[in-house]
């Protein structure tokens, strides 16, 4: 190819990617740079930020709210993983074991329908159900369990659990479909062979389905882990971290020290640590996926 043609080809290529890069530099790379560099400054949004070394990170060591947030986040991650794995897997097994393919399709569709409800509506609805005179307490009153009635979001000992446990019976449509596709991927001959060996029902689930669905389990565990560490809207909207700091999580702390206190430098240092933690999990997952294939 002539030099002129090569240059022309290169210019066309750059022309095609130019709009993407204008936007990315302006609204992605620059904010990322600001976040990462801001973590080492006393940035407050008004005065020019000064470099203060690792001061923000030493402050994190003695920040009691952050300590409480971290414990809450760990509890949250543990609960989220159990709820993201168990109910969807059980449902996918139950659907998979329905004989008629058409009926399987109907069940799947019925579980998927609720995804049209915007996430914020689900959160607001549950905040409403948990109120003192809300439906949950009304229901408990109707069945004579008045002593169980609670201020579900107002009691610092149970508010965190109330937020984590919203969405009963926790059949995430996305996770259920992933498990279901995993089960469908098991070769028919393998299932038939297991049947001859006497592995039916529960035995088949334990010996065959679960071991062969490990990639699906791992995908959902990692996605839930990474997602639940970033969860901020449920505590922000339902309790704003209260009562006290009982429902605080690190990202909510980052959000509040930044937007309420204007301590952007400190907020960014929390964001940086959370970013590194999440990145580590993501990279670990990518490694595992690579070693599989």
């Amino acid at each position: 190819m002539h030099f002129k043609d090569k240059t022309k080809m290169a210019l066309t290529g750059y022309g095609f990617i130019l709009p993407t890069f204008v936007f990315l530099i302006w609204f992605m790379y620059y904010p990322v740079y600001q976040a990462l560099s801001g973590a080492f400054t006393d940035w407050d949004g008004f005065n020019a930020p000064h470099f203060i070394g690792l001061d923000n990170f030493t402050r994190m060591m003695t920040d009691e709210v952050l300590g409480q947030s971290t414990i809450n986040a760990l509890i949250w991650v543990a609960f989220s993983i159990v709820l993201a794995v168990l109910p969807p897997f059980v449902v996918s097994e139950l659907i998979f074991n329905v004989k008629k393919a058409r009926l399987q399709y109907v069940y799947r569709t019925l579980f998927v329908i609720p995804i049209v409800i915007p996430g914020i509506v689900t959160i607001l609805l549950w905040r409403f159900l948990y109120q003192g005179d809300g439906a949950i307490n009304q229901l408990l009153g109707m069945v004579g369990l008045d002593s169980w009635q609670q201020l579900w979001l107002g009691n610092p000992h149970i508010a965190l659990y109330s937020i984590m446990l919203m969405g009963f019976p926790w059949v995430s449509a996305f996770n259920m479909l992933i498990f279901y596709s995993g089960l469908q991927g098991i070769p028919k001959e393998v299932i038939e062979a297991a049947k001859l060996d006497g592995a039916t029902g529960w035995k088949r689930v334990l010996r065959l389905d679960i071991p062969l669905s490990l990639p699906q389990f791992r995908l959902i565990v990692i996605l839930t882990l990474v997602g639940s560490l970033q969860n901020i809207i449920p505590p922000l909207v339902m309790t704003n971290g209260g009562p006290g700091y009982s429902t605080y999580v690190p990202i909510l702390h980052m959000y509040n020290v930044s937007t309420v206190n204007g301590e952007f430098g400190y907020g960014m240092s929390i964001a940086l640590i959370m970013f590194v933690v999440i990145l580590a999990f993501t990279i670990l997952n990518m490694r595992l996926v690579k070693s599989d294939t």
Partner: protein
Amino acid sequence: MKTVRMPSLGQLILILLIVLTMLPIYFILENSVKTPIDFAESTINIPLHFEWSNYSMAWSKINTPILNSVVIVVISVVFILLFSAMSAFAFAKLKFPFKNALFLLVFCLLLVPGFLTLIPLYLQIKKLGLSDSYWALVLPYIAGGQAFTVFVLKTFFEQLSNELFEAARIDGAGNRIIFASIVLPLSIPICTTVGIMNINGLWNDYLLPSLLLDRVHQTLTVALVSFESSAGSHGLSDYGGMMAAYILASVPLLILFSVLMRNFVEGIASGSIKM
């Protein structure tokens, strides 16, 4: 003689779980037609009288936010798809120096979580004087959707056969014409799929709009949250309307899913999407 077969235990559990999963929808529906008095009596039973005026009241409160959300999401998704398709085409089919390095630079952004850029974006947009306008969200949304969409579309374009492009080149078509008349039409099904994913994410976004927009430009999610606080402060009067607002808020996604799902499924069935 025909015997009626009882559903198995497994199916009974499934039906029970479906009922429980649907309970919130039932709860919103039955409360959306209650008068304040019915509502105060119980939030659980079905009312005898349906108060449809709750819906007109709810609509009057959220029609502007719904329109704002639609405008912001539509403009953002159109430009996400257009710019991503251009880049993905270049990365998949054109030759230029540093192509792989530049693609890696885009790919890396898939690892950047939203919370990291939230606060810097908020300050930057305020500084640019763009807050309280549609631009405050449209510009960062266009940027935020690029990495994922470029990645998916590039995978798709790589599978398109080169012969198609060579034939067009022999006929004298330049890359711009090839992109507009061959690549874009072929990518309608995949663009629908990633488009739906982008729409769903942006429609539900709450943090950036709550930080940046005034009442006039408020999006639906922000309006719903403030609707609830104002309903509470007026005592009982607004709860039926609030539930009606939740129903109305779900309608656009319901329409989108029911209209585009077919397109989406047909796209997969005809084999044009091979993941």
